[in-house]
Every structure is written in structure tokens, then in C-alpha cells.
């Protein structure tokens, strides 16, 4: 009997911590990201860009280990960078160069011979929809076109992993949708993508899995599909919702009461039985008991509210 070799994680970190002086940008992040398109979510200042720069070996973490595509990003950053493409969030295009020249130059900086670099630049600009504009100067490009050039330079050298820092930032709705479509296509071409954004709808629409950062802490990571209907249960009760929530919490459930409702988060199938038995013990009636589909945005807001409290 033969067994297939294990697929290495695209990214894995252990106890990853990075501080800028007194400001801690990443706190003890242990995460393993698999193949596909992964969304990196967090508010501004959550540590998304720091995380991406650590993966590239551009920042040396204060503590912890980072493996990217099976290579140690701290010990061998050049090997990692030869396999990774990076699209920064900020403005990063020289205005006095044509798109074709710039993308070809970035390919040469990844070690491609000049002729290959020019050919790849043409192909990549075609792929991102700039075949007609490739000989125009970048200073004349709109924001949407500039974002496409940034994406083209990130993939021109044939990377196995692409890190996209807020790729849809500054785009109008049509441009944003086009950019998300391009990112989905990258996933379909077999390129692994880590895509940071604070636009949660973009992540949900594009990514296979998600990594949620909050103030440098890893809040959760896993498939987007796991945010499914079983994770939250809304119970509408006839009776004292506050006491009902307290009893549920005493039974080990994460329950929050509102006027007539109790919301149980992180629920499992077994928790339905606990809710029923608790209602029976308390003598309250259950008017409605339903699983709630909780979006990434709900989770993000819930975390933010908790942090405020």
C-alpha cells in the first residue's frame, strides 16, 4: 500500500512575535495556512502588513519561527523571496517607466533572463487586462490600472505564493470586483494567495480560508466555510432571557442575552440538548430556536465589541 507524501503547509509560524519598540504588532501567533486563497483580516493596525513582511523575511521577528513553502524565512529569506510575489498596499510604481518596462525589470530582479523577463511581462500584463496599455507610462495610469500593474509584478516571475496587501484598496466597486475576480483566477491557476483586507465581504467572496488578527493576536484561522450555520444559535424565549443566559453560561455555553433573545456562540450539535434541558429546568418556553449564519463581519464586530468592553 502506498501513501502520498504529506502536503507541506504554505505558511506555518510558531510563537511569532514582532514588536516595534514598545508597540507589539504580532503576539505569539501560531498558525498553519494551507494551499489556496487565504484571507488575512483585521482592522487597521492589527498586524496584517507586519505579518506579510515577516513572511518575506523583510522583518526579523522578535521571537518565533516562520516557515514559508517549506523554507525558513528567517534563515533563508532569499530562497523564500524567489518563490513569493508581493503586492504592497502603498503606491509603489515609478511614474516615468512604462508598464512593460517596469514589470520586466521586476522579473529580472527575480533572476529571470532579460528576454524571458520581457516575454513574461507581456503575458502577465495581458492576463491582468493591460495588453493595450503596456507601453504607456505608469504616471498616466488610473488607480485601477495601477493596482493591476502591481498585481502583474507580483506574479510575473512565476511565484508559488503571492502576498497581496489590500489589493482592492482605493478601487471603485467595479474595479474592486474585477480585482477580486483576478485574485479568484490566481487561485484557480494553482497559485497560493494570502490576501489582506479589512473589507470582510471581499474575503468571504474570494477566499477558501481566513486568518483573523486583532491587535497582533491571532483570533482564529480556518476555512471560511466553518463560519457556517451551526456555530451560532439564536434562542427566543418566553420568560427571563437574562437568567436563561446565565444558566446556559453556568452550563459552559457562551451565551449573551438581549431583550427576548439569547445568542449562543461557538455552539456544537450537543448544545441544542443543553439549551432544551436548561429551558426545561428554568421553566421558560422556547418560542424559536434557530441556527444563525454568522458572517465574518459579525465575528469581527463581536471581537471588536469584546475588545471595547
Amino acid at each position, binding site marked *: 500500500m502506498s501513501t502520498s507524501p504529506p502536503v507541506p503547509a504554505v505558511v506555518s509560524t510558531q510563537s511569532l512575535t514582532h514588536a516595534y519598540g514598545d508597540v507589539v504588532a504580532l503576539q505569539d501567533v501560531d498558525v498553519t495556512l494551507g494551499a489556496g486563497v487565504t484571507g488575512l483580516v483585521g482592522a487597521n493596525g492589527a498586524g496584517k502588513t507586519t505579518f506579510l513582511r515577516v513572511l518575506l523575511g523583510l522583518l526579523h521577528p522578535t521571537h518565533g519561527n516562520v516557515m514559508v513553502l517549506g523554507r525558513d524565512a528567517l534563515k533563508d529569506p532569499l530562497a523564500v523571496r524567489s518563490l513569493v510575489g508581493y503586492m504592497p498596499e502603498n503606491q509603489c510604481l515609478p511614474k516615468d517607466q512604462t508598464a512593460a518596462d517596469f514589470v520586466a525589470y521586476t522579473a529580472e530582479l527575480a533572476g529571470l533572463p532579460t528576454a524571458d523577463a520581457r516575454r*513574461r511581462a507581456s503575458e502577465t500584463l495581458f492576463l491582468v487586462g493591460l495588453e493595450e496599455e503596456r507601453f504607456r507610462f505608469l504616471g498616466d495610469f488610473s488607480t485601477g490600472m495601477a493596482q493591476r500593474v502591481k498585481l502583474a509584478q507580483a506574479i510575473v516571475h512565476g511565484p508559488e505564493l503571492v502576498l497581496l496587501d489590500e489589493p482592492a484598496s482605493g478601487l471603485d466597486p467595479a474595479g474592486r470586483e474585477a480585482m477580486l475576480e483576478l485574485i479568484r483566477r490566481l487561485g484557480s491557476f494553482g497559485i497560493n494567495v494570502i490576501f489582506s483586507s479589512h473589507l470582510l465581504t471581499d474575503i468571504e467572496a474570494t477566499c477558501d480560508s481566513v486568518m483573523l488578527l486583532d491587535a497582533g493576536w491571532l483570533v482564529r484561522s480556518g476555512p471560511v466555510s466553518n463560519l457556517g450555520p451551526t456555530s451560532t444559535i439564536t434562542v427566543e424565549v418566553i420568560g427571563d432571557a437574562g437568567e436563561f443566559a446565565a444558566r446556559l453560561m453556568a452550563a459552559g455555553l457562551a451565551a449573551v442575552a438581549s431583550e427576548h433573545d439569547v445568542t449562543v456562540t461557538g455552539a456544537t450539535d450537543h448544545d441544542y440538548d443543553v439549551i432544551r434541558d436548561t429551558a426545561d429546568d428554568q421553566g421558560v418556553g422556547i418560542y424559536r430556536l434557530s441556527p444563525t449564519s454568522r458572517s465574518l463581519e459579525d465575528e469581527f464586530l463581536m471581537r471588536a465589541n469584546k475588545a471595547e468592553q
Partner: protein
Amino acid sequence: MTDAVIYDRGYRSYEGERLGRAAIRRAIARDGIRRVLGLRRKARRKVLPWSLLVTAVTMAAVIIGLHFVAGSISAAVAEGLPSYPNLFDLYSRIALLLIAVTGPELLGPDRSLGVLSVYFSRPMRVSDYLVGKLFAYLSVAGALYVVPQLLLHLGLAGLSDDGFFSYLVDRLDILWKVPAVAAGYLAVHGGLLAVVSSQIERTGFAAAAYFGTLTAGNQLAGVIADTDFPGSRFVSLLALDDHARVVRDWVFGSNLGRHVPEEFGFDPWVSALAIGVVALIGGWWAYRRYRKLA
């Protein structure tokens, strides 16, 4: 009539050859040369560098022409015409202008436009980036010093009564003197350029700072060194542009005027040392700055 079909070629991973860091440094140098000369840029970016380069070559041609005309009148007249060391003096002015205007372009825009974040995401180190830029600087500014001297050398050889090859053989020392003096100019100018360009983002301000330091700095160093403060003579060592001239006169055995460090009793070897120190400081400064930015 044929039916045309458009295919989406999709994305193909790159499976071809990948070159090492030496090739990356060459690519950076090539890009730097293009940037300085305005190649593959808009037409207005070409005007200044090319007009200065054409001026330099034209001046060499004019001097050869003067030698030809004067030589046909009398050898004594030809002796009094500008030769190799004078040409350095002329070219250092043109080079100063060229480097002041186009030199900051080598480092400034990459930083101010945020392009470094793309470049340093590639498999290269800060040293590769700076070495590539250094090659670009040496190629353009070095050519400005060496090519007209070469033209003059060949031109004078062609005019020589001793014959072309005899002239060249008799003056083999030119083959090391010209590069040595050019290296002095390039080192002191490049060192200062590295400091100024890595600190000041706006190319116009960087050009002004560079130009001002070399021109006004020379005068100012002379004035301060002339005061009665103890040790004030050492301020004359800050007359950076004069160090290259001292070395030029030292190498060619010429005397094209007194220079500030010499006036305050410093030997030519001190000027050569000062040039080396300026170059090292420039390199170290730029490296330190870009290590932070990478």
C-alpha cells in the same frame, strides 16, 4: 473568410532559467544607466544628460582641432593648449552638473515613490541594490571623464609628428593616470552623492545640496581654515572638490592653481586619503540608510 478565435491563454508558471544575484546587480545597473540618461523615458528626461554628454565630446573634438591648427603654425603654440589635466578640470564642471541633476535620480525616486517595497521583495540584498546603483553611476560619470580623454589621446596621437603608435607607446602612463584621476573625482563626488541622495527624497533638493556642498563648501572651508582658531587648518580638508584637483595635479605633475588643502600645508597623499574616506562614508551611510528602509 476565416473564423478568428480569441483564446484566453491563462497563466503559465515560469519554468525557465533563474539567474543569480550577479545578474540582478547587472539588471539594477542597466536600469540605473537608463534612468540617468533618460532612456526609455519621456523625451524631456533625455535633454539634459545628452546635451551635457554631447558638450563633453564636442569639447574634446574642439581641443583636438585647436591642436591641429596650432601644431600647423608652431609646436610652441600647441604646447600651450589645454591637455589631459586641463580637460579634467573642464569635465569635472560638466560632471558636477550632470551628477547633481541626474545622480539623485539613481536613489531618490525609488524611495519617494515607494518602489523599494517591490524591489526588496525580490531575492536580493541591500548590498546588491547599492552595488548595482554604484555601477550605474560609475558607468555614466566614469564615461564622461574617460571617453573624452580617450578621444583626446587618440586625436593627439593622430596629429603627432612621431606617428600614431609611437605617440601611444611613448605615453603609456596615460593609461593609468587618466583612470586614477577619474577614480579620484568619481570617489569624492560619488561619496557625497550617496550621502545626499540617501537622505533627501526630493531630487531637486538633493541636487542643490550636492552642488552647494561642493561649490560653496570649498570656499567656506577656505575661509574658516584661514581664521585663527586652533586647528582651523583642518577645516580645509572639507574642501572636497579640491581634493580631486590636488590628486590630479599630483598624478599628472601639473600645477593648475593652488587648492585649499595644499594652501594649508596638506600633502597630496592626505587629499588621496580624504577622497577614500569620503567614498567610504558615502557607502556606509547609504548602506545604513537602506538597511532601515528594506
